């Protein structure tokens, strides 16, 4: 018995020794220093003070969607600072706002339980942070039941057609994404004489991947291109060589990729290993994160992807207040303000405007204002080019999507031209 206890203590010592050697704050996907401070902000059981207007920031801070979630939390915390520094909610007597952050995990089987625990623990005017369609889909019934507006960042069309009263989205859907991707390819044909016509579409077989890939295939073919590979894969794959070899064997000159970070890196690294160099058009997702640059470095130069928003676009840059937001973000977190951070920031600003409209800090009043009112606050320029925001009856906004290109370590808008801020680096594949 004594020997068993001794062995048990030895194992515990072994485990704790390793825990002491490893600081989760300094480990990240690429083995470089982690500048993300979202982990510091997680406050799973805090309900804050009653003098504040609370937002439930339920975001995946662990697992495969952690990149998304951490950026959303950063955007939320920046919004908190901006709002409170400006004096809080005027119609509520200058009440400050408070972002109560909870890790939803990346597991769709847990998110509903977590959301229920959060929303029943206190009164929240809105919830945001669920950055993928599957997570939002799992949590939405809870938000609907508890009458808390939920903002989701995913592209699934189905989600917004389910008849939820409390679902909101300020980003494009899958068809808008594809419209932008095809529009850019047509521009390459018209302006630069691109002759490439064979397109491969590879996507993870999740709600996001499937919902985006189907309209992609349809619209790409309608635009006159040939989809010669249309292949799904199970996320977290052990080997990408079959997928990449299939694309290479088929002669796909352009490849549309819808992938999460770990699989994307495997796919891109495998392409490089087998000397296969198609024009890769990202479907958002892992293409939008600073971690891509940390992993690939200079190899990101020229990579093209679709995105919902961006830290820079012509309309945002023309507005000093919007510019101040992205500058403050980069100053605080050490990297550009990612798509999900921008979305979360703007979502919060819209809710704040709704609170100013209604003078009431409850989910139902906020929801009614979001549906009935037109929103004119300056931060709408970060997602829409100079127009006021009016949600559709189903809570959807459907702005147009942007095409971004990585240049010098950051993504810049290259299409549509009225939103672009940089000239396109002509892909090498177009000048062969």
């Amino acid at each position: 018995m004594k020997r068993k206890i001794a062995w048990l203590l030895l194992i515990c010592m072994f485990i704790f020794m390793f825990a002491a050697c490893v600081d989760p704050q300094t480990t990240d996907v690429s083995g470089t220093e982690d500048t993300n401070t979202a982990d510091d902000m997680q406050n799973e059981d805090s309900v804050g003070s009653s003098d504040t207007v609370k937002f439930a920031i339920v975001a995946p801070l662990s697992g495969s969607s952690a990149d998304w979630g951490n950026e959303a939390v950063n955007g939320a915390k920046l919004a908190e600072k901006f709002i409170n520094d400006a004096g809080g909610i005027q119609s509520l007597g200058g009440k400050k706002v408070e972002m109560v952050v909870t890790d939803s995990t990346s597991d769709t089987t847990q998110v509903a339980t977590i959301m229920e625990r959060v929303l029943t623990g206190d009164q929240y005017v809105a919830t945001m942070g669920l950055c993928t369609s599957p997570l939002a889909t799992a949590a939405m019934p809870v938000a609907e039941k508890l009458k808390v507006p939920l903002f989701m960042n995913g592209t699934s069309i189905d989600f917004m057609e389910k008849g939820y009263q409390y679902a909101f989205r300020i980003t494009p859907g899958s068809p808008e994404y594809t419209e932008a991707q095809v529009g850019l390819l047509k521009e390459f044909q018209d302006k630069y004489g691109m002759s490439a016509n064979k397109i491969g579409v590879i996507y993870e077989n999740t709600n996001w991947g499937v919902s985006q890939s189907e309209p992609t295939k349809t619209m790409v073919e309608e635009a006159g291109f040939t989809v010669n590979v249309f292949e799904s894969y199970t996320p977290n794959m052990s080997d990408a060589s079959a997928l990449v070899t299939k694309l290479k064997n088929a002669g796909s000159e352009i490849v549309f990729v819808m992938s999460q970070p770990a699989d994307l890196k495997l796919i891109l690294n495998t392409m490089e290993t087998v000397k296969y160099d198609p024009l890769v058009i990202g479907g958002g997702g892992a293409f939008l994160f600073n971690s891509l640059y940390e992993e690939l470095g200079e190899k990101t130069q020229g990579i093209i992807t679709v995105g919902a928003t961006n830290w820079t676009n012509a309309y945002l840059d023309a507005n000093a207040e919007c510019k101040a937001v992205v500058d403050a973000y980069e100053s605080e977190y050490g990297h550009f303000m990612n798509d999900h951070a921008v979305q979360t920031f703007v979502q919060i600003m819209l809710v704040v405007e709704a609170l100013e409209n209604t003078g009431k800090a409850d989910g139902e009043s906020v929801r009614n204002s979001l549906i009935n009112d037109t929103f004119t606050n300056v931060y709408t320029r970060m997602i829409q080019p100079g127009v006021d925001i009016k949600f559709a009856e189903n809570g959807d906004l459907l702005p147009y999507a942007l095409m971004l290109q990585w240049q010098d370590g950051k993504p810049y808008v290259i299409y549509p031209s009225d939103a672009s801020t940089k000239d396109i680096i002509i892909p090498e594949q177009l000048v062969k």
Partner: protein
Amino acid sequence: MTQLIQTILNGVLIGGIYALIAVGLTIIFGVLKIINFAQGEFLMVGMYISYTLYMLFNRSVSSYLLIIPVAVIMFLFGVLIMKLLINPVLGKGDSAYILLTIGLSYLLQNVAQGIWTANFLSINSPIKTSSFLIGDFIIPLAKFIAFCAALALVFLVHIFLKKLDIGRAIRATSESRDIAQLLGINPKRMFTVAFALGVMLAGTAGGLLIPVYSVYPRLGVTFSTIVFAVVVLGGLGNIKGALFSGILVGVVETVVGTYWSVNLAPIVVFVLFIAVMLFKPNGLFSKGGVKL
């Protein structure tokens, strides 16, 4: 034809990786008659230890040079697990082993998540995207290294079991514990060495794979399913069988994925698995019984 050969080469290389993980599992079964459901998690732990040592040395030491300390750490870890968890259930029946190792796999996943978080961690290595040519065929360097390591480890384990006294003692114990004991061999000690060897091999595989894959707490699950198929196809306890069946599975998976569908590849592998079980239940390369 060139494309087909390239595809087969890709399959051979990934098959080598499967074999690398499978060898440890088959040794544990061959000697202890335990199907270790935590073998994927030992691979995961090996990758985390490699990553941690790499970061402790400030990324200045190649992860391949860290394989030796990783192997030593994993061997000692295997000894600890054996002494504390496996020994108490030895001789208590298959269900005890199954439940214990399944529980151990969940424990290791959650401990890893607690220490390293659930995020995906990887190291930056130029080897990750390096390759060389043999004629018209592209050979990815990292996978080639892992494949060669698999061959070397199988050879070394074979020498260990055939030529060294302790290896012969392990084989004797696997064939008959009672007779081995009569010959003065300590069965418990042989079981410990064999189990620790199996864990060490899984951890070593982790050290060879960290330049290729990101590690996360549930990584073991990704490989476990296919590796079990490899071990059973090769014949439980058959080390050479694990190597050949690993390569076979890798080739089938890659050829089906390339010429048919990536999603269908695992289905075809398991249809093959079921077919083999129906006609050769002891495995493709086994004549029946345990052969180390």
